[in-house]
């Protein structure tokens, strides 16, 4: 079954690059794009169930930021188990720590090359979420690519 991905990012360039990378990696994967946290929560509300395979979540967004979205999702039963991958420009410890404690599954520091971006997304696509139900250890939380 084709994977369904959600991406919430207010940055137009990053959304473009992400779509390009994903298309190159998986021809049949579908991507729903939200331009901020409010947009994301509305689109989730409309489409779930069924839940998407993974939500890629930017942190710094207008109206409702990534932290708020994460907190909200963990409080709502039907969203709680959806895997969340943080996709952020920040590599600050405080941001990494906070999202880990809020229950995000992986952390991607937006890379500086398209190849690395593809490599990061590839790692996420490759995960069999039925086997990966637990949050990884802190050391493995931040993806290296």
């Amino acid at each position, binding site marked *: 079954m084709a994977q369904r991905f959600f991406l919430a990012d207010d940055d137009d*360039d990053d959304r473009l*690059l992400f779509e390009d990378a994903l298309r190159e990696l998986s021809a049949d994967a579908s991507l729903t794009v939200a331009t901020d946290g409010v947009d994301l929560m509305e689109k989730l509300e409309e489409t779930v169930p069924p839940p998407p395979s993974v939500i890629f979540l930017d942190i710094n967004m207008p109206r409702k930021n990534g932290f708020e979205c994460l907190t909200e999702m963990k409080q709502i039963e039907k969203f709680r188990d959806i895997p969340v991958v943080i996709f952020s*420009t920040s590599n600050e410890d405080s941001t990494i720590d906070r999202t880990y404690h809020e229950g995000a599954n992986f952390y991607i520091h937006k890379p*500086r*090359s*398209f*190849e690395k971006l593809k490599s990061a997304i590839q790692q996420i696509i490759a995960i069999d979420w039925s086997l990966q139900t637990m949050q990884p250890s802190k050391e493995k939380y931040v993806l290296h690519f």
Partner: protein
Amino acid sequence: MDLSTLDFAQARTKHILFKTQLRSILYHGQTDQHVSSHTTCALGEWIYGLALAAYGSIPEVVELEKVHRDMHLAAAQLIDLYQQGRVEEARAGFTSVEIMAANLIMLLSVVENTIDSGQTGSDRTGASERLTISYEELQQLRKILHDLDERISEETMQTLRAREKAMANERKFQHSLMQIQVAEQRLRLAVEASDMGTFDWDLENQEFYSSPRLVEIFGFSANDVVTHQQLIAALHPGDLPIRERAIRTSFATGGLSYEARVVWPDSTVHWVRVHGKIVHNTDKKPLRMYGTVIDITQQKTFTESLEIKVKERTAELEKSNNALQKSNEELAQFAFVASHDLQEPLRKIQTFATRIHATETALTDRGKDYFRRMQQASMQMQQLIADVLSYSRMNATEQHVEVLELGGLLAKVQEQLSERIETVGATIEADALPAMKVIPYQFEQLLSNILSNALKYIKPGVPPRVVITADTVQGKAIDSSAVEGMYHRITITDNGIGFDPQYSERIFQVFQRLHGKNEYEGTGIGLAICKKIMDNHHGFITAAGEPGRGATFTIYLPM
């Protein structure tokens, strides 16, 4: 005058006149008065012209001649003395002349009686008998007179001596008085010059004298009659305890000294300084207190205004310090935000560049080279932004400090640099490193920066070797700004290209590079960050090196 007969009454009168003349001379300085000699006066003419020849047998006549002569001579001497200016002596002698004059009058009476009763020799016997009695009486009288004379002259001498003594005393007294007056004048000058008020407090009778200047200092008019109570009442109520305490102390020590405020009738406040000294009697009982009062308002206000100025300056300094700190913080904040935000567009430039490089196969080799250079430049920029960001983060005031095993931290850094260590084939030898109280991420960065340098500035053909040692050292042996006590000392020595010692300070400044960017990559911020980290830890970092002989970085951290 008829020499044969002497008018005895006239002779007496003349002699009273003689005395009067002498007195006028001695007491009134009438030197024009003529005092005749013993031979030219009326009595003298009679004595020498007739009496001695005619009545030479009468012993009183001979006596008369002698007394008369002596008297004239004495008078002449006294006039002499007087004219020499020895006035007192001359006047003292007047008494003896008076005595002689009285003697003379008496002798004259005897002679008169004798002549009257014995004009002829036949008459003499009866008269002689009468005369004998009177002669004896006379002798007795003369004896008494003589004694009297002696006593008088004795007393006169005593009087004279006493007078001389008194005069000497008087002179001494006058001299002392003069000295006192001079001293007083000097004192008054001094007191006036110093603008002091003075007081004299009779402690027994509770009488208080204050000088006009003192009264002025207390805000009254110099001519006002001001009581001690009024002066005390003029003191600032808040300072009365100061005065009381000072007075109590003065009775114990003998010296009074205090400063207090005086409130003038016009309500202005003035400062006075009071000094006093207690004079005791022989029983150590305090009799009086003398003292001075000086107006120190100007002095005080000057001191006060100085203090106010110092306070103002301190406040200003504090304000500008705060402003500086705030601006520093803002600058750090700005550096952080700017570098953070600069990263975003740069990341996209880099990403899109890789995208073009990978997909646009039509690019010429030259075009590909341009892209490679573009990517290199953007990587340099990326590093620069990262370093500026890191440098600005070192300013953060609140930091988490913990005791950390430095050995463990070194291992972590070595792990991070393992790729580079392997590439250059470096060996790193370290002593057992102590546990130190540090800000963990900062010390990690410090070690990372220093080790990265050691792995970067290597000598071609020589396997890089880094030696790390640890010991302790006295703070004062490091730097004058070091605190008392012991410091950890960690040295990191490499065998790389080293540097000219003249740059040992400069390499710790931001953007200071000793090499061209094409020789060794770097932003010139790494060691500045190290310096900042050591500042944050109240420690030091120094660098020593020689071109071609490696470099040693030493860090000191207070224990």
